[in-house]
């Protein structure tokens, strides 16, 4: 078991770990453990079992769907002290890491080999790789390279039985069912990740980043579709609307045009000749649709543009102290239409919204801005959120692109899945965790028949704040 200085029970710490970066407040941790090895995680799980408590894994606490919010005082296993790079095999372009390692630290550590970890969530400077596995995280550069699942070769998992198993194969494809594939994105409900074999991606020989500015959201969205329809698969296509442009520009001073209705950041990478040709073509398409084009002159300018994009969600307090960040995905061709609806919904509920998102794969991130202290605001926030989700699903979209379901979208699951679908997912989960001891109360609605889709009150009292 763990030495006592890595087990905490002080009231303050249990309440600090009661939340992550999502809208949820009011969770409360039971005992908090900071293991440093697989064996210690096994010890934590055994202790939880002996004391009949659930176990909830937690990395950096930057999740946006409440996945790490502890319900009913479970034992919380924090992986931040398991942050070592275990081994790097540059020839095979892979590494074994512990789950608490920070995403960006991995890419920094492998930079001398000319390799990096491709999934780059906006929170990559702080989020943990274990959390990336849990949510099957995406990021701007996942458009061309694929999300986390495509970059995880194998995972070592401590199951709720206390047994440690390796799913997948770090040096090739594992025989049999793809249990690794089932595990990545399971949001802590199938066990606790204790080591990850990650695939590393060679740094591109050339990169060009373009900042396209438009005087309407519509023409920005059309440009995104036009680029993809042209056969170009940029490394990233990101869109920001006027509200967010102004907030981030105040922070980074990257020269974002604060009078533009929307900007699109397009990054193309690859061999120098191809990159130049693709960048020219993207610029041509943007100009044809009424946009203006600025090309990042050097790495500093490029870094500044990305800093603006990636810090967007944290810049909110310049306008309001609370945000509710959504994560629906819609078909790319319906982007403009759904965004228009989002603006209408927000207006109807008298809220403010900012849009910043992965336009290339249609992954919307409307952020509702509000001040929790304002009386009667929370029902409006939830009603607007529900309407945005419904509008996205109505055009053939899905609930979550990359943040996960967690608690946030749990009760919307029946909008997407039939009872039989949900039951199949519950049975898959129970194959790993028969007693539903790992991160209970997340992702899957309670009870087999969840017809009541509006039942936000099923989330434990107080959690919605």
């Amino acid at each position, binding site marked *: 078991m763990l030495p006592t200085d890595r087990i905490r029970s002080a009231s*303050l710490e249990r309440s600090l770990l009661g939340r992550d970066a999502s809208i949820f407040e009011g969770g409360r941790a039971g005992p908090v453990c900071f293991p440093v090895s697989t064996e210690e995680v096994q010890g934590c799980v055994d202790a939880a079992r002996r004391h009949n408590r659930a176990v909830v894994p937690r990395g950096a606490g930057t999740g946006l769907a409440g996945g790490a919010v502890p319900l009913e005082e479970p034992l919380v296993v*924090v992986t*931040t*002290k398991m942050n070592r790079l275990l081994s790097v095999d540059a020839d095979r372009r892979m590494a074994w890491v512990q789950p608490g390692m920070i995403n960006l630290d991995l890419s920094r550590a492998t930079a001398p080999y000319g390799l990096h970890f491709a999934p780059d969530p906006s929170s990559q400077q702080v989020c943990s790789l274990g959390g990336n596995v849990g949510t099957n995280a995406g990021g701007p550069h996942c458009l061309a390279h694929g999300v986390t699942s495509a970059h995880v070769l194998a995972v070592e998992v401590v199951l709720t039985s206390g047994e440690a198993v390796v799913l997948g194969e770090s040096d090739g494809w594992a025989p049999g069912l793809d249990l690794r594939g089932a595990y990545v994105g399971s949001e802590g409900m199938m066990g606790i990740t204790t080591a990850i074999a990650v695939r590393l991606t060679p740094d591109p020989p050339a990169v060009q980043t373009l900042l396209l500015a438009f005087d309407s959201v519509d023409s920005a969205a059309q440009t995104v579709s036009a680029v993809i329809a042209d056969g170009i698969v940029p490394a990233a296509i990101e869109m920001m609307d006027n509200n967010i442009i102004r907030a981030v520009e105040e*922070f980074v001073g990257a020269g974002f045009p604060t009078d533009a209705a929307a900007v699109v950041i397009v990054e193309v990478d690859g061999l120098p000749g191809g990159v130049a040709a693709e960048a020219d073509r993207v610029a041509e398409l943007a100009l044809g649709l009424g946009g203006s084009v600025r090309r990042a002159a050097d790495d500093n300018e490029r870094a500044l543009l990305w800093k603006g994009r990636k810090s967007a*969600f944290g810049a909110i*307090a310049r306008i309001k102290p609370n945000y509710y960040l959504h994560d629906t995905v819609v078909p790319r061709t319906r982007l403009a239409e759904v965004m228009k609806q989002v603006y209408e919904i927000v207006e109807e509920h008298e809220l403010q919204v900012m849009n910043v998102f992965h336009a290339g794969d249609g992954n919307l991130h409307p952020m509702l801005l509000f001040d929790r202290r304002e009386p009667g605001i929370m029902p409006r926030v939830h009603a607007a959120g529900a309407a945005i989700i419904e509008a996205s699903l109505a055009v053939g979209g899905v609930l979550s692109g990359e943040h996960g379901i967690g608690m946030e979208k749990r009760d919307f699951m029946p909008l997407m899945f039939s009872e039989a679908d949900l039951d199949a997912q519950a049975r898959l989960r129970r194959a790993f965790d028969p007693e539903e001891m790992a991160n209970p109360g997340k992702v899957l609605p309670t009870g087999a028949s969840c017809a009541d889709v509006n039942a936000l009150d099923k989330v434990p009292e107080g959690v919605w704040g």
Partner: protein
Amino acid sequence: MSAKVSLGIDPEELASCVSCGLCLPHCPTFRVTGEEWASPRGRISAMREVQDHGAAVDAAFLSSMDTCVQCRGCEPACPSGVPFGSLMEATQASLARRRWGDWRRWGFRVLGHRWLLSLLSRTLAIVQRMRLVPSKRLGLPLIPLAQERLRASGDDVWLFTGCVMDAWQRSTHAAVKRVVEATGAGISLPGAGAGCCGALSLHAGLENHARALAIRTMGALEGSAPILVDSAGCGAALKEYGELVGTPEAAAFSRRVMDVHEWLAPRLEELPGVAVRSSDAVVAVHDPCHLRHVQRAHHPVAEVLARFATVVALDDEGLCCGAGGAYAAMQPELASSIRERKLEAIERTGAQIVASANPGCTIHLANAGVVVRHPLEIVDEAIDHDG
């Protein structure tokens, strides 16, 4: 649960954190512990627990607050611009009112009296030589037995000399003075009234004492000449007198304050040529937190040095070294864990010499065996003073 304690924090400032967590990797105590209570986001949540929800000011809360280095590395990292330093200073001020026994309450008073500090320093220097104090464990440098006398040379600029730095590292002031004079500028020195800038008191929550020191310092540096500071911590404090004292005079005073490298960078052409290029040795530039995160004026140091030496930057994004004024003495374990990371970053550069524009960092790093110089000491040795 105890009675509700107000920490006296401005409610709007306290509400301004959205808990996104982007500050976490920029916090030295979170970096070495991985624990939420030791992060800026966690500390703000803890302040809210106390001020907004009536949680007790208990040992866990005190430890969360007192382990903060107040490096303010979280501020430039925060997309929402949360004024963390101000939240922490307000909290420390409320806590200080409850801590009558704190040695800092009387200890820091010494810093305001030059003669007393000088007397105590000389005594300490003698006792050190008799090997009667464990200097390293206390985080102390070897204090000189005798100090050279600095003389004013004109009235173009002031050189702020401060308290501990003047008593323990006056040779640095002397080097800085020679470099500034080499540009042709004449230097005024503050009279006996000026001593401590008040930074240490402010960080310990002793706001009134800090304010009194600020007013005295302002009185000793009159006129309109620029005030040059060669200690990043003092420079940051002087630049924030506008907020601390809250008068238009104080704000005008703060606008005159410059880190000496900020002043020097546009005047490099006026310096004489290089006599000795000490620069075969590679110099790693350590950015003091209060220069980089608070004054946001760390670039001129490398700019000035690059002319006289081969300069390399550290790759740790300006993460604190753990010195933090009196922090290394108050929280020795955390301070040395934090320093370990800095030592690794220094080692990765392969540099033999580290340049630091803050005396606290210099002492803290030198205690770990690193060769640390003030940037202008390196410049002073390199330039041809006769040329």
